[in-house]
């Protein structure tokens, strides 16, 4: 399935885009998505172990299953406030 992934902050800068379309298997989970992302943007690799993933407005761990149409976002640890 194809998933649009939003990128923010340094992830956006390193990828040079604020979103990216990734092609992952229909049974892919969030861990697989991380791997697809780093394959597509090797410059993101220093960030990837710490990259947070959200589906909709919730944080998702690597075991979380992806589904078509999921609103996915990847970003580094937050630093608001």
């Amino acid at each position, binding site marked *: 399935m194809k998933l649009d992934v*939003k990128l923010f902050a340094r992830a956006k800068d*390193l990828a040079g885009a604020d979103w990216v379309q990734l092609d992952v298997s229909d049974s892919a989970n969030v861990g697989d998505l991380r791997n697809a992302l780093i394959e597509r943007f090797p410059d993101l690799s220093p960030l990837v172990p*710490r990259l947070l993933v959200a589906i909709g407005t919730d944080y998702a761990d690597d075991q979380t299953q992806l589904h078509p149409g999921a609103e996915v*976002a990847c970003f*580094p*640890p*937050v*630093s*608001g*406030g």
Partner: protein
Amino acid sequence: MIKLTRHEIDYAVLTESVRSQQSGAIVLFLGTVREMTNGHQTVALDYEAYHEMAEAKLAEIESEARKMWPVDRVGIVHRLGHLELGDISVAVAVSCPHRHQAFEAGKHLIDRLKELVPVWKKEYLNDGTSAWVHPCVKSADHAVSAAESATENRGNDLLQSTRKPE
């Protein structure tokens, strides 16, 4: 009142929005852009957010506080965009019947905001460099404690620096 804004935060409006005759105590927290942090000098910050998720998480932490304390009213505003020294980046106001509840709830709200809400700051220093602030988190490979930034939490992420002369 929960919102993200690109305009200057009016904390008096926010404070008035949590006043109530049922509550004897209001606590307002303001985060402002600080100049000196661990010997380096900040000149400005840029804030960016994942807007929809940030508003959802702010609503979540309000609910969380309401489960823990008899919270009457809550107001949270986070500013986005370009901020200069001394500018207010975030304002959290809470009213409760008694003062210790209001202090604890206010502290909890800003602590959780800094943990959970998808907002990031990019820091501009007086030496012409800039870098995103990304506090370190524990992962399988790394367990690094967060240090301090020009508002509150600086990440050690500067180790893997993206700083370049402007």
